[in-house]
């Protein structure tokens, strides 16, 4: 064979052009790429939502501040809430679920790869629709504005009379469209977990991550669909002249509240279950012990799933329901603290006697345990209807749910980012920067949200754009706003760490944490086909069995 006949690939073919690269990412149906698309998309919106929060806090830093107008303030809290829930936390959790579930259960992809891509793009365009309202909400008049009806959009604020223009329509459409994406992803997760497990992985041998995401997907199906239905009704009201929430024609504003919170409360558990899933993977690995009470963890998760469907009206104690309804929702809301408490004790018992390594992911998970406990306790306080009558719609409520979402969910998410970053990028992150992020963020978090409870107890209502001096709120608001800057600095360190480590980090190797689940058995980053041969497992910790053939787990399970 002559040397001329050998067709060496030229450089252009070896490294595809930017357009080819873009085309590959846009048309991909690979669960890992879609997972990363979800995550990057959510990080962009995290920055946007964070800027909105910062604008609100600067406005409230002192009484009679005029940093933004009341109208802009209304748009800020609406967009902040909607963005953070629907276009940050949900996509990022779906991203991790997408990326990790097939790897953890030993599959080559999700059950429906094309549905997966469809769901991602629905979510992505939902977010774009929401922000297009900034330019398009007044239609052809040009200057638009963002929705300003609050993230739960109570009737009759959303009626044509009180919400002129199209800003509310963009809000409705964005949630409707991204809701279809969420339902598609949920269907995909359920089918993947039930139908794609590798040989030997029975439901009782699945990683807890897969279990918790399975329950999460079930909750998405049961919770996001009612929101979809309610949004359709709102569109019927706004576009076709229907009367669902039109009190002038016999409709009811309270029905919207019920429909929204039938979605809204299970949604909290949709967000928190994947956070539990991260903690359930990270805490055992960094405590060098298997998870304590695996069957109880699964049982508690299922219990949370069921009870969370019957607690929604604790958001409505101040609306004025019958005492029978109040009693029911008080009891069910307090009951859900029980399985959640069981989980916290199981994580503590996992750490108990373990050889704990205080790496960045573990630091975030430990902080999560403490903060989530406090968040749960203020939740139980507000579950008591008389207490809620006093503090409903005050800054105490705002502090409580930010403690859940930031102190609980976001801390676990940061832990997950650091824990799986080596797998996704093939590089190890910078541990000093990770620790700096942790300390900046935990200081900022506690400055902001610990002290936010107090003006709430002193009677400061939520969603006010300014306040009178001399009510005892001034200093607290100043401290709360100072905390925001620490958090913002932490986020910048975090993003910088991700970018710097991606381009300049040390190679991570396949299994930097000496972990036990299947995703660590393949390359970092994993090849397109995930596993060269489909693995088979005999216990909950397949890599432990592999590393310790003399003392495998399956002898004891």
């Amino acid at each position, binding site marked *: 064979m002559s040397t001329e006949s050998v067709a060496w690939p030229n450089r252009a073919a070896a490294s595809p052009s930017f357009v080819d690269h873009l085309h590959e990412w846009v048309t991909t149906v690979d669960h890992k790429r879609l997972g990363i698309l979800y995550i990057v998309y959510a990080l962009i919106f995290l920055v946007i939502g964070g800027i909105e929060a910062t604008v609100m806090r600067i406005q409230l830093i002192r009484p009679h501040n005029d940093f933004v107008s009341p109208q802009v303030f209304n748009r800020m809290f609406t967009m902040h809430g909607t963005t953070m829930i629907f276009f940050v936390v949900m996509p990022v959790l779906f991203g991790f679920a997408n990326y990790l579930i097939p790897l953890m259960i030993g599959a080559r992809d999700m059950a429906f790869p094309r549905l997966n891509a469809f769901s991602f793009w629905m979510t992505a365009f939902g977010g774009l629709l929401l922000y297009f309202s900034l330019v398009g909400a007044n239609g052809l008049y040009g200057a638009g504005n963002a929705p300003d009806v609050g993230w739960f959009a109570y009737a009759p604020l959303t009626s044509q009379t009180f919400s002129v223009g199209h800003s509310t329509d963009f809000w409705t459409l964005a949630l409707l469209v991204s809701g279809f994406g969420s339902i598609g992803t949920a269907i995909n997760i359920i089918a993947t977990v039930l139908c794609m497990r590798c040989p030997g992985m029975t439901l009782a041998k699945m990683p807890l991550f897969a279990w918790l995401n399975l329950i999460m997907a079930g909750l998405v199906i049961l919770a996001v669909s009612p929101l979809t239905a309610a949004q359709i009704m709102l569109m019927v009201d706004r576009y076709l002249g229907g009367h669902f929430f039109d009190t002038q024609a*016999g409709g009811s504003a309270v029905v919207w509240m019920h429909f929204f919170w039938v979605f809204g409360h299970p949604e909290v558990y949709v967000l928190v279950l994947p956070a539990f899933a991260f903690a359930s993977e990270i805490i055992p690995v960094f405590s060098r012990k298997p998870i304590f009470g695996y069957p109880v963890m699964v049982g508690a998760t299922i219990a949370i799933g069921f009870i969370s469907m019957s607690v929604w009206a604790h958001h409505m104690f101040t609306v004025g329901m019958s005492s029978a309804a109040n009693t029911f929702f008080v009891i069910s809301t307090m009951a859900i603290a029980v399985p959640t408490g069981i989980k916290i004790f199981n994580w503590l018992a996992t750490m108990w006697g373990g050889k704990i390594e205080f790496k960045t992911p573990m630091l975030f998970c430990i902080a999560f345990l403490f903060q989530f406990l406090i968040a749960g306790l203020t939740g139980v306080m507000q579950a008591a209807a008389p207490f809620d009558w006093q503090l409903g719609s005050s800054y105490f409520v705002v502090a409580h749910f930010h403690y859940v979402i930031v102190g609980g969910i976001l801390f676990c998410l940061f832990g997950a980012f650091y824990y799986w970053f080596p797998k996704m990028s093939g590089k190890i992150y910078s541990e000093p920067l990770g620790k700096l992020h942790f300390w900046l963020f935990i200081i900022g978090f506690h400055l902001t949200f610990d002290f936010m409870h107090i003006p709430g107890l002193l009677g400061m209502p939520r969603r006010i754009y300014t306040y009178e001096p001399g009510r005892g709120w001034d200093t607290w608001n100043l401290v709360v706003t100072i905390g925001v800057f620490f958090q913002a600095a932490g986020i910048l360190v975090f993003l910088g760490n991700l970018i710097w480590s991606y381009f300049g980090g040390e190679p991570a190797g396949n299994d930097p944490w000496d972990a036990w689940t299947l995703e660590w058995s393949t390359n970092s980053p994993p090849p397109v086909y995930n596993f060269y041969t489909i693995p088979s497992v005999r216990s909950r910790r397949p890599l432990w069995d592999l590393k310790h053939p003399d003392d495998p787990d399956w002898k004891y399970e």
Partner: protein
Amino acid sequence: MCATSTTLPPELEWKLPARGQVGMFALIGAESAIFTIFVVAYLFYIGKSLSGPMPSEVLSPPILYTICLLSSSLTIHLAAKSLRGGKVRSFGAWWLLTIILGAIFLYGTASEWHRLIYKDGLTITTNLFGTTYYSLVGLHGFHVIVGLLALSSVMAFTTFGAVKQEQAERIDVLSLYWHFVDAVWVVVFTVVYLIGR
């Protein structure tokens, strides 16, 4: 590449549910939740309209069309069964009958709406009854249309000879959806024509 080398005990037979079926059941779960919200709204707003026409004045149960839709569940079951047995011609016949029955039902809804709009003057804006009625029945009608489009595309493939016994599993998934559309009608019929009248 180190896939786990621990081998399975040979007595373990590894069988998982079919993903098409599971996915369809999950979709049906989501759809049921959507319909539940609309049904709850319908039930809550019964008798709360401030002006006429009221359901008792204008609605009469579409028994014939209901029989058509419900019997289409039987015909699609027979169609799927024929295909599983490899009888493609009999599959095509039952499938076509299913489409015809579904189309008759859809015609029934259309003619009822035409009568309500042009004779009784009931539109979606008239009163709460109009809003909830057109939304709920319309949502169901929309699902019938989607189902008919899916059934018709399978019919087209059958005509060109592209549907074979191997596809029986996929046909089962589609027939699951059609059964769901029929089952929802039982609920809608009960709520709209029996309880709400």
